[in-house]
Structures are given as structure tokens and as C-alpha cells.
């Protein structure tokens, strides 16, 4: 492992597992990133803010769940491949056990109309949650009118025309990347170019 900063010894696999298991067991309600930050940057001080944000940016660009991508990247930087493995395991174990138990229990209880009613309410609430997450990621990812256009075309292709996700992803993705392709600019600050 490359130790760029030699001030601190690398944490043991056990403490990496324990930390991610704690996050995996307590991060109820979605915002795993906030829990990750408070443990990895705060309590444990394994990362500074800049490297945390860098890992977050990789996590959000790469396919995969944000929480598991973060576990892989953080675990790898702390302790190589084995670190990535134990971090991901700890992160997923509590939720996976709970949801497997839910899968097993569902067959026994779900026929009751009362359970179905309660779960239906929960599902409606989850739509509200998904929309709020959508607004948050949209606020970060979408900057100019063309970004909104690509969002609309993708959603319309999948939801309106029933195009399957990979075709929409690859088709619109290639056009969008080409649209944003690097160009030779004369202006010194490309970020400031507003529509």
C-alpha cells in the first residue's frame, strides 16, 4: 500500500469492519453519505474532507450503490482489497439480514389486508422520498438547459416509450458525452460560460 501520509498507521481490518458495520446498522432513513462522513472524516479521522469528496465523486459517477461504492473506495485506500471487502461486508450485512428476514416473513403475513394497507401507505411515502432524493441529485448534477433536455429525453424514452434502460443509458449517454466533449476554448474560465 502506498502511504502518502505516514503520520498514522493503517487501521486494522477489524476496526474497518466494525466502523462500517456500525454505519450499516445505524444509517436508517437513507442519508448514508452523512453517516459515512461523520464516521470516516469525523470520529475516526481516517480521511480529510478533500479525499472524502473525491471518493464521493467517484462513487456517484460509477454505476453501483453510493453506499457500497464508498465502502469499496474507502476500504481500499485504508487497507487494500481486503479492506474494501470487509468494509462492504460490514456496510451491507445488517440491511441484508433484515431484508432477507422480511422476504422470509412476508409470505406468512402479507395476505392480511391490514398489513397490505400499511405497506401501501409506506410505498406511497417512499415515492415522496425518491422524489426528494431526485431533486437533490438534480440540483447538483444539472447546470445548463441541455442537461435538463437529456434528463427529459432519458425519462421519456424509458417511461413514455418503454425503451429498456440499457438502450436509453447507452444511446442518450453517448450523445450526452459527445455533446459535452472537450473543445478547444479561447476563454480562460470555461465554467463561467453561461447560456
Amino acid at each position, binding site marked *: 500500500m502506498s502511504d502518502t501520509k505516514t503520520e498514522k498507521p493503517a487501521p486494522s481490518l477489524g476496526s474497518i469492519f466494525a466502523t462500517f458495520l456500525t454505519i450499516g446498522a445505524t*444509517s*436508517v*432513513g437513507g442519508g*448514508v453519505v452523512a453517516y459515512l462522513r461523520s464516521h470516516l472524516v469525523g470520529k475516526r479521522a481516517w480521511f480529510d474532507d478533500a479525499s472524502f469528496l473525491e*471518493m464521493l*465523486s*467517484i462513487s*456517484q*459517477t*460509477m454505476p*453501483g*450503490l*453510493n*453506499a*457500497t461504492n464508498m465502502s469499496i*473506495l474507502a476500504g*481500499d485506500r485504508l487497507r487494500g*482489497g481486503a479492506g474494501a471487502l470487509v468494509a462492504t461486508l460490514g456496510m*451491507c*450485512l*445488517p*440491511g*441484508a439480514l433484515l*431484508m*432477507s428476514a*422480511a*422476504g*422470509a416473513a412476508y*409470505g406468512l403475513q402479507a395476505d392480511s389486508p*391490514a398489513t397490505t*394497507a*400499511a*405497506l*401501501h*401507505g*409506506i*410505498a*406511497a*411515502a*417512499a*415515492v415522496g422520498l*425518491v*422524489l*426528494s*432524493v*431526485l*431533486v437533490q441529485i438534480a440540483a447538483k*448534477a444539472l447546470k445548463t438547459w441541455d442537461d*435538463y433536455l*437529456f*434528463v*427529459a429525453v*432519458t425519462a421519456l424514452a424509458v417511461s413514455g416509450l418503454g425503451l429498456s*434502460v440499457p438502450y*436509453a*443509458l447507452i444511446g442518450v*449517454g453517448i450523445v*450526452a*458525452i459527445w455533446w*459535452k466533449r472537450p473543445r478547444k476554448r479561447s476563454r480562460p474560465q470555461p465554467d463561467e460560460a453561461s447560456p
Partner: protein
Amino acid sequence: MKDLGDLAYVFGYLSLLTVGGGMAAFPALKSLTVDVYHWVTFPELLHFYSLGQLSPGPNMMMVSSIGMRVAGPLGALVALICFLGPTALGTFAVGRVWKRLETWRWRTAVQQGLGSVSVGLVLAGAITMARGAVTDPFMGGIAVVVFVLLMRTKINPAYPILGSGALALAVFLLK
């Protein structure tokens, strides 16, 4: 054995679609698990997804619920490993070469281009989900109230979600 193979194929494939998060794969998750393989009904899928929002950790651990329904504990394990594995390897590899990618001139184009496409996919997932969950004005009201609450306050989403379940149960019992 065939079930395990099907689970591995379906969740390995879905894994590759989780661009921008698990929700991006939701339309394909619905069509494969409900319409093609008949492992769960659409309401069941919505219930598992919603319960998954209440459970700690990554938000798509509900894939293990489906694996469990189809083939028991081994099914849960196969679904989970296949759903996480392919993207895990990709992220691991990119994490290692990131320093070099950072100065790649196409990096911004890829990040921005895929960024808007992934928002579009998450939107499509939300629409698929809303079509199943928002079945009447009352459910629509719940969705809107939860959305506004989460946008306006810093409340932990678990509370309004649980509250909505309790409310829907109360309304059912009073009918």
C-alpha cells in the same frame, strides 16, 4: 438450481444499470422480477422496496428479499452478490486509477453527460414506482406531504415513512 442461475443473471444484469443509484434500475427490476420471471407481484415489489427504505445501510438491500422468496437464504446471497459484484469490481478498478483519470480530457464530459442521463433514469424509476404506489388521491396526498416535509425540514425520512404506514393502517381499520 435453475432459480439460482436466473437470480444470478437478473441481478447481475440489473447491477450494470445502477447508474446514479439503485433507483435507476427500478424500471428494469420491475419488468424482470414481475413481468418476466413472476417472482413477485408489483405490489409486493413496491412493499419490499419501501421496507428497504426503512432498513439501515445501502438502499437496495431489498434484492435479498426477492432472492429469499425465490430460493431461500442461498437465493438471497446469490441475488446480493450478483447485484453488488460487477459494479464493485468496476468501482474498485476506477478508484485505483482515478489519479490518472483526473487529468483525462474527457472526464468532465463523461461525468456531466452521464450525470444528466442518470438523473433521467432515476426520474424514470420514480415514475414506474409512482404508477404502482399512487393508486388514489389519498396515496398521492401521502407522497406529496412526505416530499414537501423532506424538502422543507431535516427530519429523518424513516419517521414520515413509518407515519404514513400507520396512517394508511388507521384509515383501513376505520373503514
